[in-house]
């Protein structure tokens, strides 16, 4: 040790290398909003046209489900068997990596393929589920000089290849405002006269666009590919098509069809920014991909493209997850720095000279550095939770240094003034001082960390998310002991100087401290002196504890984890019926106008999209704090519109599938599926009638959907097949399908003037508005032309009932969601529903079960329950080991309930929520708050035997320990204040954590200093104490 402290150069070199490694690690860490721990979710689907849902389930489904459920990595399996398709939603456990999930899903898919008939197995498709709506980058492209069409023509060929190279992207496109299609309008009657069915024309066209390879020919050294070129070449597509011969009679396409360039119907969408049509770049990330790097790559691609594009073409990001994540993390980094500064200032105010403050504060950056290195090594990245952990630890980290330094001072003060500059003496003295506190510093650090260990061993969402926070606290805090024991003494040795307070500020703070100490001692004396006062105090605290848990805690809002703040709202409008984009456009643009009128001034932009089957607004507000007001106003504005299902959510680019359970969940099991269906339908009408919930739906849906069955007149079809072998029911189906497809059947993609256009075959001259129109379609048979009606008879039938299964069990689930600001009332609403449902005539075989609306919350709490109890036990065991007495360890433990009182009050007063983070706060709090009790008790037991009266012993301990307890508590509390305030986008997420620790420490700090002496008074006999061995801390 002498050698270590005496060779500062070596230590400084090591420290310098260490810092360099830390900075390198920090710069190399990837960035994301939440820890990159997921819960992979895959969807598998396949078609089984030949089976009914019941038969397929019995023959194959059940076996497949059982096999999948026996896979240990799979957590839940939801299956739905609809009239023609089955869907499997496989959800893996928390913490299963994307690669592992991919491997498992490949196995599952090959298993399914091996089980089902060939035709079904060919149709199996599967994909990872997209994350939230936040996983998309949207930018607008504009030019002052050019039209949208022209801009697109220039931008697309340059930007699209660059975007295609980005690995995180699932899909990207520069929306083409004027996408062209080559339309072939087939006149059905003309075709029928020439004896051509639309199917034959389609097949011929498909073939005409394909070239045929005819091998290779070697001529001497040369080799030539032999080709039969396609009949239609891209450059001369229109004339080629016009003269395309369709059959042996030499009928040309031009005599049955018109060929024209048309705006591509299938691609059509309206995108508008602030009410004007815009050219939009749309890039959506693959499920689970890192959104920050996705955004970065997209922006790199844009920057790269801009170098090659004319300068008048500009880009403006509208929705940029990367920027958002960066800001959220940046705010937290500022909080970390702020926490460090606050801790330093508090240290300076409390301990005196600037030099000493710096010596103690050097710990903070070094702990960060160590944390970064360990994070890099263990594969953590920079996210809201890991940064939150660093910010939380900043204040705690100086404690060890403070203790070491204080001890060195104490020993130095004992030296005669003349010898203070003798290096050998100083060295010996420092070694002695450090040796004296080495063990307590190490154990107290360990005890703070030990409480987190059970947390790391749990599974579930809670641990997956909070694990990062716990790990970073451990990483940075563990190292603080090392710094305190090695670096602090080394520096201290080099700094020769007067440790006594020299500045005015310090004198003032010392004065203030003495004042507080005096006040405290005066208040403590009656507690120690009078038994009744002590009993009253203890009983009062117990009463307060019970009151806070039984009455205040239930009133605090609960959330699994608070979402980060967002300044952008997504309003999504889905049509209730089958309205297409054209039907929706007038409505949506009307609402756009309304939104722009009301919020145009509050919003940075309003981005509108109208697409088939869904429309949306993105409203970016200038001021994030307006979000809740605007959201609730928009809910009021839009909830009363007919024809659309409206959903309003804050935009948040999170890769993490944070559970978002419904406010009402009723599970209906037993009975036949038809019985269940009727009951669910009735239940839904009853629940909807109360109008408590914003949305009510069921799985499977009970809405009536109808099919139009065209039942073939088999005899007619057979007879026809005799005279025309190509004729079949399939041909009739193809005819009807093509005639009812308003966008035309896609034939092929083709390059045309540098752009990709699609070629489509569309049937004209047969407008189909009614069933009769469909049945009037002409079908040629020999010399005659008949109507479709001659071969089929129509029948409107309810669609086959879907079967819905949850982990292999037949079930119908009713779900309800309340308005956002009324979610606190979900218990009352669920109780109301339960009462209403109990009045329904429920068949005996069916059971109806209303889930606890907090089920998801409780299950995450339950997963933490074990670690909470384990942490409590660890604290008790540490107490036992240190003091060798159960009473003493229980006394130490009594700091925990006092912390809980503070925690509950803080959460309540600041309107925060009970969430996973506040429970983590509880664990952290337990670790820190018992430290004060340990310090107090340790001192008391060490010096108890030197006093005659118990009162004197307690008072002496109180007066000696007041200062260190006060200083360490203040640094920890004040350093956590920035987190407790919840600044920045990400602030909301860890705010409950900061609040609970700050509140808990305040209260436990104050209460421990009174309650522990009171408990000591009550549990120890007065007079000289000798039964318990003094100084149990051996």
């Amino acid at each position, binding site marked *: 040790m002498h050698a270590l402290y005496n060779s500062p150069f070596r230590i400084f070199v090591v420290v310098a290398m260490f810092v360099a490694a830390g900075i390198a690690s920090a710069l190399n860490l990837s960035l994301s909003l939440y820890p990159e721990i997921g819960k992979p979710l895959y969807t598998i689907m396949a078609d089984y046209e030949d089976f009914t849902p019941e038969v397929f389930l019995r023959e194959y489904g059940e076996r497949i489900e059982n096999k999948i459920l026996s896979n240990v990595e799979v957590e839940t399996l939801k299956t739905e068997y609809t009239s023609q398709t089955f869907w499997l939603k496989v959800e893996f456990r928390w913490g299963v990596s994307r690669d592992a999930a991919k491997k498992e899903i490949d196995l599952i898919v090959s298993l399914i393929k091996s089980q089902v008939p060939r035709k079904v197995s060919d149709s199996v498709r599967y994909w990872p589920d997209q994350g939230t709506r936040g996983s998309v980058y949207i930018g607008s492209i504009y030019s002052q000089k050019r039209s949208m069409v022209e801009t697109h023509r220039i931008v697309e060929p340059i930007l699209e290849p660059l975007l295609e190279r980005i690995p995180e992207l699932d899909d990207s496109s520069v929306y083409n405002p004027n996408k062209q299609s080559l339309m072939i309008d087939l006149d059905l*009657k003309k075709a029928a006269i020439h004896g051509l069915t639309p199917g034959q024309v389609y097949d011929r066209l498909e073939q005409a666009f394909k070239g045929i390879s005819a091998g290779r020919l070697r001529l001497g050294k040369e080799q030539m590919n032999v080709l039969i070129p396609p009949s239609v070449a891209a450059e001369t597509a229109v004339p080629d098509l016009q003269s395309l011969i369709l059959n042996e009679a030499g009928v040309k396409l031009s005599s049955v069809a018109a060929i024209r360039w048309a705006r591509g119907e299938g691609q059509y969408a309206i995108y508008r920014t602030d009410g004007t049509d815009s050219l939009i770049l749309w890039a959506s990330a693959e499920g689970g991909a890192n959104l920050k790097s996705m955004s970065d790559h997209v922006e790199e691609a844009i920057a790269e493209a801009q170098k090659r594009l004319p300068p008048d073409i500009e880009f403006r990001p509208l929705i940029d997850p990367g920027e958002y994540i960066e800001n959220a993390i940046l705010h937290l980094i500022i909080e970390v720095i702020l926490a460090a500064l606050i801790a330093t200032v508090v240290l300076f105010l409390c301990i005196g000279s600037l030099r000493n403050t710096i010596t103690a504060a050097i710990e903070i950056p070094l702990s960060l550095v160590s944390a970064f290195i360990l994070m890099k090594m263990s594969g953590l990245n920079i996210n809201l939770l890991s940064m939150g952990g660093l910010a939380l630890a900043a204040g705690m980290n100086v404690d060890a240094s403070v203790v070491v330094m204080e001890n060195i001072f104490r020993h130095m003060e004992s030296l005669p003034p003349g010898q203070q500059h003798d290096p050998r003496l100083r060295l010996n003295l420092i070694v002695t001082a450090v040796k004296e506190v080495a063990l307590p510093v190490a154990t107290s650090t360990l005890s703070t960390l030990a409480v987190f260990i059970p947390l790391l061993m749990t599974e579930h969402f809670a641990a997956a998310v909070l694990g990062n926070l716990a790990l970073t606290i451990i990483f940075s805090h563990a190292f603080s002991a090392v710094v305190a024991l090695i670096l602090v003494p080394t520096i201290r040795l080099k700094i020769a100087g007067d440790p006594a307070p020299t500045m005015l500020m310090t004198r003032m703070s010392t004065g203030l401290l003495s004042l507080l100490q005096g006040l405290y001692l005066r208040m403590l004396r009656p507690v120690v002196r009078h038994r009744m006062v002590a009993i009253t105090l203890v009983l009062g605290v117990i009463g307060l504890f019970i009151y806070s848990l039984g009455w205040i805690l239930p009133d605090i809002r609960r959330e699994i984890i608070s979402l980060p703040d967002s300044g952008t709202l997504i309003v999504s409008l889905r049509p209730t019926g089958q309205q297409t984009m054209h039907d929706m456009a007038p409505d949506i643009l009307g609402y756009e106008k309304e939104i722009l009128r009301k919020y145009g001034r509050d919003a940075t932009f309003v981005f509108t999209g109208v697409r088939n089957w869904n429309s949306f607004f993105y409203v970016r507000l200038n001021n994030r704090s307006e979000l809740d007001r605007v959201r609730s106003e928009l809910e009021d504005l839009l909830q009363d519109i007919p024809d659309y299902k409206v959903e309003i959510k804050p935009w948040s680019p999170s890769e993490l599938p944070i559970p978002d359970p419904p406010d009402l969940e009723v599970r209906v099991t037993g009975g036949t599926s038809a019985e269940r269906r009727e009951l669910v339908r009735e239940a839904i009408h009853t629940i*909807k009638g109360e109008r408590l919930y914003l949305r009510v739906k069921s799985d499977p849906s009970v809405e009536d959907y109808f099919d139009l069955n065209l039942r073939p007149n088999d005899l007619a079809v057979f007879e026809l097949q005799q005279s025309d072998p190509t004729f079949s029911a399939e041909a009739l189906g193809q005819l009807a399908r093509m005639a009812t497809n308003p966008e035309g059947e896609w034939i092929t993609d083709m390059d045309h003037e540098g752009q990709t256009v699609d070629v489509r075959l569309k049937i004209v001259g047969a407008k189909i508005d009614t069933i009769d129109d469909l049945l009037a379609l002409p079908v040629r048979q020999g010399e005659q032309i008949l*109507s479709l009606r001659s071969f089929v008879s129509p029948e409107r039938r309810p669609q086959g009932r879907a079967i819905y299964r949850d982990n292999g069990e037949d079930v119908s689930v009713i779900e309800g969601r309340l308005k956002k600001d009324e979610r606190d009332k979900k218990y009352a609403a669920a109780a109301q529903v339960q009462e209403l449902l109990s009045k329904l005539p429920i068949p005996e075989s069916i059971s109806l079960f209303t889930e606890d609306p907090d089920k998801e919350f409780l299950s995450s709490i339950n997963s933490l329950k074990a670690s909470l109890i384990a942490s409590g036990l660890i604290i008790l065991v540490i107490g036992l080991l240190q003091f060798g007495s159960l009473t003493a360890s229980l006394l130490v433990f009594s700091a925990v309930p006092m912390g809980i009182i503070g925690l509950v009050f803080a959460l309540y007063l600041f309107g925060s929520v009970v969430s996973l983070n506040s429970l983590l706060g509880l664990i952290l709090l337990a670790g820190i708050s018992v430290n004060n009790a340990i310090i107090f008790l340790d001192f008391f037991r060490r010096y108890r035997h030197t006093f005659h009266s118990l009162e004197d012993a307690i008072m002496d301990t109180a007066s000696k320990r007041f200062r260190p307890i006060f200083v360490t508590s203040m640094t920890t509390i004040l350093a956590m204040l920035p987190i407790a305030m919840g600044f920045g986008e990400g602030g909301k997420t860890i705010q409950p954590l900061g609040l609970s620790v700050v509140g808990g420490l305040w209260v436990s700090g104050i209460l421990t200093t009174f309650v522990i002496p009171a408990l000591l008074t009550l*549990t120890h006999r007065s007079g000289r104490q000798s039964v318990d061995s003094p100084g149990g801390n051996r």
Partner: protein
Amino acid sequence: MPSEHQLVRWDIQIMRTCTRFIVCFSLLFSLQVGVFAPRGHSALPETVGLEKPGVWIETAAYSDLAEALTFPARVEANVKVQVASEINGNVVRVLKRIGDGVQPGDTIAMIRNLQTALDYKLYRLVAPKSTPRAGVLTGQPLTIGQRVSENELLAEIIDPTNLRITTLVPQADLTRIQRAVHMTFEMGDLNQPVTLISISPTIDTKTGSAPVTLALSETSKSNKMRLLAPGSYGQVRFELPSHRSITVPFEAVVTLSQNRRTLRLEKNGAIELRDVTLGRIRGERIEILEGLKPGDRIVVKSSSYLKEGDQVTVKENDQ
């Protein structure tokens, strides 16, 4: 000798036990009561939506429902005179071209006889007596030098102003089309009223359909321009007698249970549910057979879910 203060005092012993007990109990209590207990005393959420949801109303009324059946149909000539050669020989002269008007007795072509036994060398192909006044030559064009044989069909003469329409109607629809009140033949922009002439008493086994013949009225005048060529395709539309019934849009019907379909009616600002029996689909609407009277005010759309007795505001009257 144990001094007094070395004895464990009973009150301290009790106090210790109590403290331990209370600490343990309160911790358990905290976990059970605080975190896990439901929140008991919260109020019900406010109802979603406006106090009085907006409704869009339509007043029930009888309307004449026209139903129509459409079939592909072909134009045919009523008169078709066929001219055949009576000898074997070669065509030497063509006097009438395809599309030319032909009167009875007109020579269409000259054919040289190849059989020397006969007493004349040139044979005239003549339009027969049955040729209509407005006859027009159709069929395959004749070529000079073309070899023709005895009884070979060489020309057809039709009357383009005397046309009929034929179509094939599936068995199931035959009785329905007989009830048709109005029939039209449609081809492109052309729209001609037609009348039913005959329905074949036999069904073609191949197609399960019977040929139906219709007459074009006013053909002679309108077809001066020869818009209708025999052989061309269009469609025949049979409009069936309309019958009076009440229809409502699809979305107005609410399925309360499998056997219970209801309409929501608005009466003096309140909702009344009315069970109805549904009929057939008519385009985008559905026929109501029972349960609805003319004048009932039907809710077609509403801004939120409605149940019996709910108060509503009428947003729009679809009259």
